[in-house]
């Protein structure tokens, strides 16, 4: 029967997916289908009454500790300071971290590896499901935690909601080729990749930004968000005139859309005939007109080159540094980050020409980072992933888990406007009901596709009190221990507790 695996998958049937898994793969590719061995021996939780340095670093650089993480990281150095220094170095070099468990976990999310052309062959629903599941699974199982944290940071920063036009297919490629590829790279390269990402060209209308004659008005949508959200920030010193001039510079970029074309779908092309060839001024810098008597090729080269001229003006602008530094500090330090930390991080960003790792290294070295422990509020995704990690749960991160995120308004790739999910706590304060529901459902093994062994977990930790210390990231207070005992649902209560909502 000539019935290809691809055709099978297009039906979007999970049954088909499971039934055919691996049937036409090369033997070497079978490796991720064998579940890597995981450790399930005893582990040592934190011992001090306040959050110690190691716990603090795990909280902030990851989606929370798995059983055994604290002990492993503490042993990376003789002192706590040495241990966290080694942890930072390890996390900033993800290529050297073997990540077999995460690879194994996402093995069924095959669309994540497909080319743009192949993506269009699937039903949108399947792509969203696999992208969501892949994101959750990597959050739960990857050892490259800081990398995953930064993937989420950039996903919000360059937000694209699946839903508008062809983004339904194209976001999968954006996630892989833009966000994940450059998450630990240099910001200018990330920005350029995003500017030319077919998904972004769809999401912010860059593909319909054109000016064939003086009557036609360029579409300013991307130009505005480029300045306001992606680079300079809303008070970054640009004017409405700058937005219009940037939009003019970016006229002529198009994407082959599923409605107009059958082949080369998602291909990004520059068409000089759609480009505004007049002179422009962007943030005070002159961009000369493109002369009519130049060859078509030369016009194309110069017109397309205006994208790089614009990005070069903004990518490493001091306002961009400040804007990004403030956002990073909000994520890693505090909701209202101290200005000294922002200044230090912005400085590192500029000195390193936008090197993400160098910038993060500077952030983790600020006294403000070291001083503010346990005060950040987990967003719903962080809460769910951290609960799955802390309990060492097995999970397929399927629909029942994703449904909790839907209910809390934090489904991956579903934030409707370009500003991305908020990092502040206020918008998420109404989500406690579903966090508590999740905590109880998880602890009592009532989530289909997710399973934990509470008894074994307590044994491995060395008793209920020790388990509590593992979950809270510090020794529990007498009141917390008592509340857990009296609740009759100790594990659920710890996960639902105020402390577990913070990091």
């Amino acid at each position, binding site marked *: 029967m000539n019935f290809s695996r691809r055709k099978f998958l297009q039906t979007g049937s999970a049954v088909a997916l499971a039934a055919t898994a691996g049937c036409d793969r090369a033997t070497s590719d079978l490796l991720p289908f064998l579940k890597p061995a995981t450790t399930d021996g005893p582990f040592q939780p934190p011992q001090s009454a306040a959050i110690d340095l190691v716990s603090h670093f795990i909280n902030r650089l990851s989606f929370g500790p798995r059983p055994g993480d604290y002990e492993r990281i503490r042993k990376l150095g003789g002192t706590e300071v040495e241990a966290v220094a080694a942890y930072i170095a390890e996390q900033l070099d993800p290529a050297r971290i073997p990540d077999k468990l995460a690879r194994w976990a996402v093995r069924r999310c095959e669309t994540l590896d497909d080319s743009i052309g192949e993506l269009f062959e699937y039903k949108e629903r399947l792509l969203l499901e696999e992208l969501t599941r892949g994101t959750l699974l990597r959050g739960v199982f990857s050892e490259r935690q800081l990398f995953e944290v930064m993937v989420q940071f950039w996903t919000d920063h360059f937000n*694209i*909601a*699946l*839903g*508008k*036009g062809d*983004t339904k297919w194209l976001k999968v490629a954006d996630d892989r080729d833009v966000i994940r590829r450059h998450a630990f790279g240099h910001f200018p390269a990330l920005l350029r990749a995003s500017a030319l990402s077919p998904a972004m060209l769809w*999401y912010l209308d860059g593909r319909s930004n054109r000016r064939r004659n003086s009557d036609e008005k360029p579409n300013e*949508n991307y130009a505005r968000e480029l300045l306001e959200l992606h680079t300079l920030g809303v008070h970054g010193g640009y004017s409405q005139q700058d937005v219009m001039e940037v939009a003019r510079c970016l006229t002529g970029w198009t994407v082959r859309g599923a409605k107009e074309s059958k082949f080369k779908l998602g291909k990004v092309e520059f068409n000089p005939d759609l480009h505004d060839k007049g002179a422009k001024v962007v943030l005070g810098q002159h961009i000369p007109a493109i002369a009519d008597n130049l060859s078509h090729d030369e016009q194309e080269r110069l017109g397309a080159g205006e994208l790089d001229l614009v990005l070069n003006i903004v990518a490493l602008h001091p306002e961009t540094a400040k804007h990004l530094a403030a956002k990073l500090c909000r994520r890693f330090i505090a909701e209202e980050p101290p200005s000294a930390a922002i200044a230090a991080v912005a400085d590192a960003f500029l000195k390193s020409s936008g090197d993400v790792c160098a910038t993060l290294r500077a952030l983790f070295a600020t006294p403000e980072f070291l001083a503010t422990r346990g005060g950040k*509020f987990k967003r719903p995704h962080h809460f769910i992933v951290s609960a799955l990690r802390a309990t060492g749960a097995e999970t397929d991160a399927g629909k029942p888990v994703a449904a909790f995120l*839907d*209910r*809390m*308004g934090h489904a991956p790739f*579903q*934030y*409707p*406007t370009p500003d991305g999910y908020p990092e502040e*706590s*206020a*918008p998420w*304060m*109404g*989500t*406690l*009901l*579903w966090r*508590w*529901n999740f905590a*109880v*459902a998880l602890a*009592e093994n*009532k989530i289909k596709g997710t399973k934990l062994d509470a008894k074994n977990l307590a044994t491995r930790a060395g008793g209920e009190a020790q388990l509590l210390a593992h979950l809270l990231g510090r020794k529990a207070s007498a*009141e*917390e221990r008592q*509340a*857990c005992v*009296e*609740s*009759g*649902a100790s594990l*659920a*209560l710890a996960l*639902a*507790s*105020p*402390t577990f*909502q*913070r990091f």
Partner: protein
Amino acid sequence: MAQPKTTQTFLTGKGDAQGALVVVFLRGGADGLSLVPPLADDGYHRARPRIAVKPADAVKLDGFYGLHPLLKDLEPAWKDGALAVIHAVGSEDATRSHFEAQDLMEHGGLAAGGWLGRFLRHRKGATAGPLSAIALGRALPECLRGAPAATAMTSLKDFSIGAPPNFLTQLGRLYAANTGTLAAAGRDTLAALRRIEELRAEDYKPAHGAEYAGDYFSQGLRQVAQLIKARVGLEAASVDVNGWDSHLSQGAVMDPEMIKLSKGLSAFYRDLGPRLMATTTVVVMTEFGRRVEENSAFGTDHGRASAMFVLGGGVKGGRTLGKWPGLTREVLEGPGDLPVTTNYRDVLAPILNRHGAGDLAPVFPDFKLAPLDLYG
């Protein structure tokens, strides 16, 4: 951070002052010309010799339009001035595909997320509570995509936490030991849970002699009314009425749906009473209307403009709004469809403003609004 003033702060962000917006979507393309027939337009009777509503049967509205006789239960609200009708309303997009038209209308154009979701996300001082947005049914409708917290529910049971009785007591103890917003959020959430438990336990008695029918629409509205009265911070609810695709035997298809719609809305209106209806708005919409001319099978095919209803929330009702384009051959669009003279966003915009929208630009991007004067 300032301490919240009442326990309601995290349930609504507004202390329930905002009132609830209930969106009723008629799926399948409901025929506006049957719901609200233009009785005085001869073209209507000529185009539909067999299925037009006869002037003698219709509920009289304003001399030009009437209500379908099966919508007669809506007459009291109309007479109270609490029900407004907007005719020849619809989308700027001419697609006649159900899926595409619903998708575009619920997203508010070619945009990510739904208009109701973006409204909840971007309205003034947005702080979503656990029960701020609900959809009756198994799945969230597209209009609620991107909402800060939205729950598809089939019954109040969906909200309860299946934990030992001491669990919530001890949880309350831990949150009370905290200070600031998290402590307040914990307290409010516990209060909401207690209220839901009470609601589940009580035998709900609709007020003012209202009686809800047993169908899913009436039962859905009954739960919405219950939540509104319980002041759990409901700000938006979505309820669908399916089955309006009347290609053949218009009456057989539409009649049961119209009865559902009319009985459900009138029971809800009566149950809430004037005080609660003053802050509760119900808006009824559909993806498109139907061809003006009837087809050979006593039905009508996919068309363009239809009608919308706005009930309560301070609307200046008892009147019809929107420009009637007439039904002469020159004005009909494409294969003979009622042209859209009012965009659906211009009906929703003033309602959203009434419900505290603030800036509508993120709610309806890429569209120049010309909001209808629903309240003047």
